[in-house]
């Protein structure tokens, strides 16, 4: 089990020594069960840090946001920023490093191993508790969660309320870190990877369309899925931008010639294109942190969509996103042996 006290102490000493600008971690939220991402710059505030199964967010996102903010504020503090990273978070950081989003030395990764479990799926938990409100969730040994409700604490096998992504997790131990808490467990004995995708693939094509059409129809285009994705760090998204990338020397022509690939209207065709472009752009970059799916207010199964190509990356192209920061990316490389028979 993660020694949270040691984690806090590590964070504290980093800040006390001034070797990092801040520590990005988790703290308890006022809004609900799930933890809240916290950026802590004050050594005394490290006491607020927690690490438990409610720490679902992928904090790599905040490295991206931190970079944006620093560009904006023209900060010249060259010290690294520390970040608490689970296996999936560290994979995301690796992809960001691979894409030269920031230099390795600008981040101090505090790895935390998910050992035999992972994080909780709040929806599953709510169902499991059948109306009772969970007040806190903690690790209970290596394979169970201890859940506190108004009626007291109970222990539930983690696999029953764990996030799907954790059940299918291929590397629950951080692949990249400067300091690691928790032990690496190779045997996780949970689900086989890509189970959900493979299941969906068996469905008839028309049914699959009916399924996705229903999902796309529901989308609000609130862009939470994209905003929460550490890989969607583009200043201006090609599909539908909610931000414009403008430099002082951006010409009027460049602004006038922005391509409108889709409309902002929440129509099925436009939303489908938005999600498909995202899925394509995530091919070989998605680390399956499943944040997009979690944040969606209308429960669109985006993980299912995005892991479809992840499955191809892994199974067809033997490409494992987030495992090697020095490798060329999936789509900017190829092999002679890539599939060819689908071409006529």
């Amino acid at each position, binding site marked *: 089990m993660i020694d949270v006290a040691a984690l806090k102490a590590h964070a504290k000493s980093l800040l006390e020594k001034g070797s990092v600008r801040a520590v990005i971690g988790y703290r308890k939220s006022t809004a609900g069960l799930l933890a809240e991402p916290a950026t802590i710059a004050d050594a005394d505030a490290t006491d607020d840090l927690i690490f438990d199964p409610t720490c679902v967010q992928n904090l790599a996102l905040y490295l991206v946001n931190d970079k944006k903010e620093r560009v904006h504020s023209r900060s010249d503090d060259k010290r690294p920023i520390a970040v608490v990273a689970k296996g999936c978070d560290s994979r995301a950081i690796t992809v960001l490093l691979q894409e030269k989003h920031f230099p390795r030395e600008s981040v101090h990764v505090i790895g935390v191993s998910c050992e035999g479990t992972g994080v909780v799926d709040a929806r599953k938990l709510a169902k499991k508790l059948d109306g009772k409100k969970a007040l806190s969730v903690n690790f209970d040994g290596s394979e169970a969660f201890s859940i506190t409700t108004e009626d007291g604490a109970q222990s539930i096998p983690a696999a029953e309320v764990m996030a799907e992504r954790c059940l299918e997790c291929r590397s629950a131990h951080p692949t990249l870190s400067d300091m690691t808490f928790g032990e690496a467990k190779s045997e996780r004995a949970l689900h086989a990877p890509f189970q959900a*995708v493979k299941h*969906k*693939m068996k469905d008839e*094509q*028309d*049914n*699959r*369309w*009916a*399924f*996705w*059409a229903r999902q796309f129809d529901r989308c609000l285009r609130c862009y939470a899925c994209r905003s929460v994705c550490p890989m969607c760090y583009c200043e201006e998204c*090609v599909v539908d931008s909610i931000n414009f990338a403008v430099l002082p020397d951006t010409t009027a022509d460049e602004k006038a010639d922005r391509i409108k*690939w*889709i*409309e902002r209207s929440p*129509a099925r*065709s*436009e939303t*489908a*294109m938005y999600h*498909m*472009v995202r*899925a*394509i752009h995530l*091919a070989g970059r998605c680390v399956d942190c499943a944040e997009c799916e979690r944040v969606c207010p209308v429960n669109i199964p985006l993980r299912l*969509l995005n892991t*479809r*190509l992840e499955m*191809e990356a892994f199974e*067809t*192209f033997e490409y494992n996103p987030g495992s090697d920061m020095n490798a060329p990316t*999936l*789509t*900017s490389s*190829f092999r*002679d042996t*890539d*599939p*060819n028979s*689908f*071409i*006529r």
Partner: protein
Amino acid sequence: MANAVETAKDETGFEPKIVAFLCKWCSSAGSDLAGVSRLQYPSNAVPITIMCSGSMSPMFVLSAFNKGADGVLVSGCHPGDCHYLKGNFFARRKIYLVQKLLQFVGLENDRFRMSWVSAAEGVKFAGVVDEFVKDIKKLGPQTRLKAKR
């Protein structure tokens, strides 16, 4: 004027709208050869010549479907013959992914196709278009990804 840009529909039925992205050096040249040889094939596929199949962004495919294409064809030089050395290898990987994705969301498999057509394969080009048009006619109009405009 208005009907000028819409595909003519003959009485007998559905005329698919197809966009064919052809690389300049092989497939476009192959289609030229088909022309020089006066091979006949259906007129549904409107060619857009791009420099290299490697420059085929997935956006183009998705956008064509969004704008109402009933079928999209991408054609480039055979592996190893790319005018730009390896553009078609990048294309192959990307197009493969796009195809898998389109199939996963449930677009009919036959609507998106890639082919290798060299500059010498005029006959093949005509055949590819012919077959594609036939397959799409069987499917009828593409409604799934098309924007309601």
